Every structure is written in structure tokens, then in C-alpha cells.
């Protein structure tokens, strides 16, 4: 998997490191880590419903913050667990613009083997960087 949970930086919460060959892949990896935090069986989340997300931000890391926050919003507001299927990030005049297609289905405890509710993305140790031809992020979730 293109993410790894980190033990050492968040005692009460959940931290992960994710990576990808592009910004888009990194965002998809982070969405996968977020879902794996909430459900033990992400592969059991069937793509029944599709949602388009458009976001923009002057900072790439805060664009990722908003994207993950959006997925958390859908978890409560629509009771949806969502895979990030397609992410496109473009930069225009210093603004990063994200267009994403996410899909999934309503939370089903019996099927998805739920683990823990995620309250929010925190900015604690939050980081997006490009190093050694790989995009990497560190994210701490409040649970």
C-alpha cells in the first residue's frame, strides 16, 4: 500500500505517511489511508455512488488538508465511505485547483469492519514534500 501508519508521533490519534509518483497519486494514497483508518476492509466498499469534488487553495499542503476534510464531511453528512478514483491538480496563477471523482457506498458496519471514527485532519506535523522524485505527506488525524 502507498501509505504506512506511524507509531511515534501521535499517542492518542492516528498518524500516517503516504506517498505517490505525482501530486495526484499522493492525494489518492492519503484518501486510501484515511479510509483504512475508519474501516478494516476498504476493498469491501463498493463504488455505488459517485461524487465530484472541486477545491482550490494557494498552498498545495492545505489543498490536501481540504480534500481529506471533504471526505470526512461526507462520512458524517451522507454516511459515505469514499475511494478517491481520479484526482487532477492544476496550478493557475499561484492557485492549486483540484478536481476529483470519489466513489463509494453507505457505511455498513457488518461489511466494512469499522474501526474508529475520524473527527478531523490536524495540522500537527502536517507536511507535503517532494523528495527523491516522490511526493510524500505526513498526516495526523484526530480520532
Amino acid at each position, binding site marked *: 500500500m502507498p501509505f504506512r501508519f506511524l*507509531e511515534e*508521533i501521535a499517542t492518542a490519534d*492516528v498518524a500516517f505517511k503516504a506517498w505517490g509518483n505525482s501530486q495526484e497519486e499522493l492525494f489518492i494514497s492519503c484518501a486510501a489511508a484515511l479510509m483504512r483508518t475508519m474501516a478494516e476492509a476498504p476493498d469491501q466498499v463498493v463504488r455505488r455512488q459517485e461524487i465530484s469534488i472541486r477545491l482550490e487553495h494557494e498552498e498545495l499542503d492545505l489543498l490536501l488538508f481540504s480534500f481529506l476534510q471533504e471526505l470526512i464531511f461526507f462520512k*458524517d453528512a451522507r454516511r459515505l465511505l469514499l475511494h478517491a478514483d481520479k484526482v487532477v491538480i492544476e496550478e493557475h496563477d499561484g492557485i492549486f485547483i483540484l478536481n476529483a471523482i470519489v466513489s463509494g457506498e453507505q457505511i455498513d458496519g457488518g461489511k466494512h469492519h*469499522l474501526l474508529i471514527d475520524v473527527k*478531523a485532519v*490536524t495540522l500537527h506535523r*502536517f507536511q507535503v514534500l517532494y523528495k527523491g522524485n516522490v511526493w510524500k505527506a505526513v498526516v*495526523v488525524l484526530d*480520532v
Partner: protein
Amino acid sequence: MSLPLQLRKISDTIWELPVTYKDGMLVPARIIASDSLIGGMEAGVFDQAANVACLPGILNYSYCMPDGHWGYGFPIGGVAAFDPATGVISPGGIGFDINCGMRLCLTTLTEEEVRPRIRELVDQLFFAIPTGVGCTGFVRCSRSKFRRVIENGSRWCLENGLALPEDLEMTEEGGCFEGADADACSEKAIERGYDQIGTLGSGNHYCEIQVARSENIFDEATARAFGITIPNQVVIMFHCGSRGFGHQVASDYLQSFLKVMTTKYGIKLHDRELACAPFRSPEGQAYFAAMKCAANMGFANRQVILHRIREVFSRVFSRSPEDLGMRVVYDVAHNTAKLEKHLIDGEQREVLVHRKGATRSFGPGMPGLPDCYRETGQPVIIGGSMETGSYLLAGMASAAPTFYTTAHGSGRTMSRHQAKKMVQGRKLLDDMEHRGIHVRTASYGGLAEEAGLAYKDIDVVALATEEAGLSRRVVKLVPIGNIKG
């Protein structure tokens, strides 16, 4: 664990980092802990307490309570007061789960009466109080009705037959933060939380049936004043907050403060998670009004859960809640910011107190306490791990230096993943059953993460708060039934 070299021991329970510890510190940071607790604190606690000490307008000290551990922004257990005129308000000093708190309800039942029905009680509570990821509550609430809930808190519950007048009296702030303004909350926040009233959530949130055994009573007179009067009396304790609504309010304002903090107000910080705005600024006041809405959702949520608990006990024992003596001892928040009067440099002043994973602990005679607790001080509820028990304590006059604040829980010492590696949820459930604690959970994985070994020793934490003069132990309550998300 090596302690920072600059950490000085001021007294048996006070440890201080001077302003020279880190660039930008305006006041020293004080950690309240016994020798054994300080040794177990992560480096992040000291670093974060020092970061808080850099926030504009901070008064006296940046504090961390004995159950403190590494959080985000403030440490969990962080307490700081700010000058309202020159200081800031920070969502990172309150937490995403605004008005996460504890409520304790009495019964006149004994352990001997409840034990034979414990399985039935826990099972029915598990169905009556939705738990786990994305759960929704039984209160059918439109978005417009929800706006009334968040402006009125438990008062809305009273008007809708979900509360008794005395429930509100036994709730901090009477179950409603004045000045809550739904217009300060985003539509997103409302959409995220309007159907979650009466839900527990997950993580360390729980509802527990507990017993006050005679050997665990530390102060009989105060225990009596708090309603613990029968040997092996059964009580119900629960822990939860403002759910998705509160989480979204905090996330919204964290982002909006980031936009203005440096560019508009020239505030530079060590940690973006401490994003803040001047308290008197439009942004600061908007967050304060929205935070109060989330606090009111927390009170309403716990009130509706209490209503469900009363229904379950009433059904199982075929007696009315009144007949079962199901009175609230107290409901107290541990994630808030409030304007309160405290002694600063010998003068009573209104200050903005942030408490993040820290409990208000008003001493005897203080304004804002119900008449029945004027002599005892405020009931303080400190929740332990689900295996070890929890404490009912009383607020003390000597807690004035920490702005009348004490600990809130036992505090984690082990990461969730580490706990899950060491403990299997299913096996833990069976082990607890053998030890006389019947558990229902929405998630075995989540259960393993909350195993007792992942937490500090609650007895040590409660004792440390007493030794530090923050709160005194009244009774330790041990679990016999638990539901968790």
C-alpha cells in the same frame, strides 16, 4: 524518557520550563505531575506546553495537567488563560471535539440488583445509544430545528421532553453557553451534525455502568452530598462530545484563522495547529459564538443520551426513572474556552480560559455552582480506561493557580496501533467478561485500542490531582458494564 534539561522542580507536583526554554515564550510553562507521571510524559508535551506559552496575551503560565500527553496544538491536558483585550482564541486550545465531557447519573440500585440484568442492560443501551463510525441519532431533527438546538443546548431538550429541570441545574453553565449564534456556523457544519444528537461516537467515548464500592470511598460526607449513599450503589457514567458538528466548526475556523493570522494580525507561531485570532477581532468573536453552538450540541447530545439511558433502565426494571433515583450528579465539559473571573496579579479579572482535555474544578462557595454543592465544591468526573475504573472528585479552593482546573482522564501512554498489536479485541472482551465487566462494542479493533494497558494508571493521576490541590478524591467507580463505539 529523558526530561528537558531546563525543567525545574518547583514543588512535589509542579515542574517548570522557564521562558528561556524556547524562543518566543511569554510566560513559563508549568506541568502538574508527580515524580512517576513526569517521567512518563512524552517530549511532545513539553514542546507543546512551551508553544502555548508563546501565544499573545497569555497570562501567568501555560499549564499541563497530570494526565497530559502529546496532542496537536495544545497538549492534551493543556490549560491557558488569555487577556481578552490583547490575547487570542485558538481552536487548537479547545480541541476538535468541542465540549467533549463527562456526565454521571445516579441510581438507587445496588450491584446485587443490577448484576443479574447486566447483559440485558448493556445490550439495550447498545441499541438505544448509536455508536461507532458515522452513526446517527433517534432525534428526528431538521436543519432549522438543529439551529435552535445549538443556540439553546439542554434547554431545547427540556422544551422537548428530553430533560428534567434539575438535569440542567446539574450541568455546567446550566447546559447552555450564552451567546451561541448559529449564523456563525457553516451550513457544512450543520449538515454534518444535525442528525447526530444522542450518539456516542467512537474512540475513547463510552457509556459505562459502574459501582461505588464501600472500600473505594475516600470521603464519605462528600460522597453522600454527591448522592452516593448506598453500599455498592450503581451509577452510569458517559463520555462524548459535540460529534461531527463540533468537529466541523473547529476545522472551519482553523482554516479561516490560518488565512488571517499572519497577514492581517501579524501573529507568527511555532505550530500551525495553534492557529488563532485576536479574541476581540471579528474572526475571534465569530469562532467564540460558533464554539458556543458546538458546546451546546455537546450538552444536548449528552442530555438525549441520558434520556435514552433512563428509558432503558426503566424498561429493564419496570420502574420509573424517578423511582430508580436516576438523578444527574453533574455534567462537566473538558474541551472549551470560557470567559471567567480569576485572580491575576492580585486583581479579579475576566480572562479567557482554554481547557483542552482539562476539567473545570470550582472550589466550595464559588459562583456558578448548584446550591447543593456550595459546601463541597464542584463534582469533577475523571474517566479512566474501561478496564480500570473512573473517579468522582471535588473541586478545591487551592486550584486557583490553574484557573480552577484539573485533569480529565487517565491519559494515553501507548499509540493506538501499538495497543492493537498487543491486544486482540475479541480476547479482551472475553477477558473483561471473566472479570465481571460486560462489554458491547461497535468495533473489536476500536476496543483493543482502548485497552487499559494503553493508559496511565488512573489511581496515580487522581492522587496527583489531589496532591497538587486541584481536586480531591471522593469515590472511585469501577465498571461492570460498558458500551463503546
